[in-house]
């Protein structure tokens, strides 16, 4: 029960928030708004799944926003300027991202560097590379793009469940299975608990670390692909600062920044909460959109404080029952 408490609290916050918004704005409780929440946050959700793995393992990945930006520019150039078929371009970019992630993971493991520094270098590298390739926004006009962007499952009430929303849901399900039901997932939790004892247990710490950062970068690449579906363009300035939104979503979703604890489902709700705040502000129409950041900051702070409280409560020795002589 205690283990699930943060996720339950996050879910309750989301539901209460949604109900409050719905009471205030009659059009809020509609399939349109729900489908928009999924579509608009698809790229954030996908990259947040990878971040959940990284943070549970006790690390951090600051490079994801830049990797998304790199992916969008790479795809736009490959498809539009070099006539690479879109599916080949997708495969290519995912391979590049995997190699990039593996390199960061290896640097963290074998040079014993803090993930913060290594992935910060990754952030600059990837963003710099995308600017080097192109500084302008390049439209992608491949037929596949208009097909995918135009296709959606129509929900009653005008909502459109788009392909990218479905992709995000699929990534969450796959991520949940990988984290909670495989040996790799168990190793990720173990790493977050203690690296040294994980190594002593016979887990190949190096290989696991490299795989974790590979997974994060590949999902960032996938998120970049989704981002190009979303905007039908590649732009070197896209997804600036998304790494911070992602970390916020993961932490609001109940994952401990210190590692060893968290659920993929919590991250899903964390992403939705951020989307909900943004939607509320647009519905209101008079609030500055920067309130999104402030609300996220407040929530983040509240959740970290809440987690810390749980840790303190868990560590407290059980109270002695009156009248019993300690043995």
């Amino acid at each position, binding site marked *: 029960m205690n283990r699930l408490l943060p996720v339950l609290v996050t879910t309750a916050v989301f539901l209460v928030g949604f109900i409050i918004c719905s009471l205030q704005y009659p059009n809020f409780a509609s399939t349109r708004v729900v489908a928009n929440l999924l579509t608009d946050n698809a790229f954030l959700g996908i990259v947040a799944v990878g971040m959940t793995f990284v943070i549970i393992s006790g690390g951090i990945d600051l490079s994801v926003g830049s990797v998304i930006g790199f992916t969008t520019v790479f795809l736009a150039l490959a498809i539009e300027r070099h006539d690479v078929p879109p599916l080949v371009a997708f495969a290519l970019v995912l391979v590049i991202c995997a190699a990039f992630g593996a390199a960061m993971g290896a640097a963290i493991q074998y040079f014993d560097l803090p993930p913060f520094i290594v992935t910060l270098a990754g952030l600059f590298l990837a963003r710099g590379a995308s600017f080097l390739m192109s500084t302008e926004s390049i*439209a992608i006009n491949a037929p596949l793009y208009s097909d995918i962007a135009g296709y959606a499952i129509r929900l009653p009430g005008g909502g459109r469940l788009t392909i990218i929303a479905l992709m995000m849901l699929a990534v969450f399900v796959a991520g949940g299975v990988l984290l909670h039901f495989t040996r790799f997932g168990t190793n990720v939790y173990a790493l977050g608990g203690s690296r040294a004892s994980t190594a002593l247990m016979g887990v190949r710490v190096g290989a696991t670390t490299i795989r974790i950062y590979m997974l994060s970068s590949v999902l960032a690449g996938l998120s970049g692909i989704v981002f190009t579906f979303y*905007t039908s363009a590649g732009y070197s300035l896209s997804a600036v600062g998304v790494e911070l939104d992602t970390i916020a979503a993961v932490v609001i979703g109940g994952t401990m920044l210190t590692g060893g604890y968290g659920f993929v489902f919590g991250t899903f709700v964390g992403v939705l909460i951020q989307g909900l705040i943004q939607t509320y502000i647009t519905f209101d129409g008079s609030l500055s959109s920067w309130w999104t950041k402030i609300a996220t900051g407040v929530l983040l702070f509240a959740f970290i404080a809440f987690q810390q409280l749980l840790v303190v409560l868990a560590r407290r020795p059980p109270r002695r029952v009156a009248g019993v002589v300690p043995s």
Partner: protein
Amino acid sequence: MKFKALLAATVVSTLASTLGAQAADLTIGFSQIGSESGWRAAETSVSKAEAKKRDITFKIADAQQKQENQIKAIRSFIAQGVDAIFLAPVVATGWDQVLKEAKESKIPVVLLDRDIDASGKDLYLTAVTSDSVHEGAVAGEWLAKTVGDKPCAVVELQGTVGASVATNRKKGFDTAIASHSNIKLVRSQTGDFTRAKGKEVMESFIKAEGGGKNICAVYAHNDDMMVGAIQAMKEAGLKPGTDVLTVSIDAVPDIFKAIAAGEANATVELTPNMAGPAFDAVVAYKDKGTVPPKWIQTESKLYTSADDPQKIYESKKGLGY
């Protein structure tokens, strides 16, 4: 008081006559780029005032310079079922899908200040933008009229190299003075649209032209560079506004202060009131089904010392420039 000042600032008064009470009950969402420049902040505050004047419920979403935020905002406006959407696009590409969704929901979209790629041409109702070639032409015509038949050597402070606004403002000015053989463009260099650079370049112009005695007029692609150039002229002992004529573009508050002080002569306005004509187009479209032209050009009004610059300065300074 502030509201009155805002009203006074909405200088496209010719359009004000078309206002009516029939606009009531409309809800319009505006996806604004952000507040990166003073002009854009002024556009936001003028839009709000214009909406209030027409009793329109106006919802603004500031996208913080991000296209994804603009797309989100448009989707959310569609979900709210607004009557129309205004969009100031941060980039020209990538709007087709979300604008199709708006079209499917029969919500007209009006572009403000910037255009989008040709592929989206039938997805919006109209675009309200300024014509920067025309702005340059207005500046050039004023100069031609003011100097008459006297010979006149002009120096030009260009905007950022490669920026379409700079290219267009130069083109318009060049065309306007082409038929006047007495007016000659003697020097032209970029001042990057900034005050500091405008001052620096003007200093080098003055040196190159023998202390500035030969310069008859300065043309700057924006007011900020002109403010810098005025500073440089004063430091060189010249009298801008009397010895040297000045004409620039944008009509920011500071240039009115200079005009009021007699140190600048003319400015061409890039109006922050893009929303006013857009509101009128939407109201006419909703009430009578009048389809507006695909492009509504805003007025590029010329201001000189005859237009009570002090009063305009007072009314503009609160807009966020």
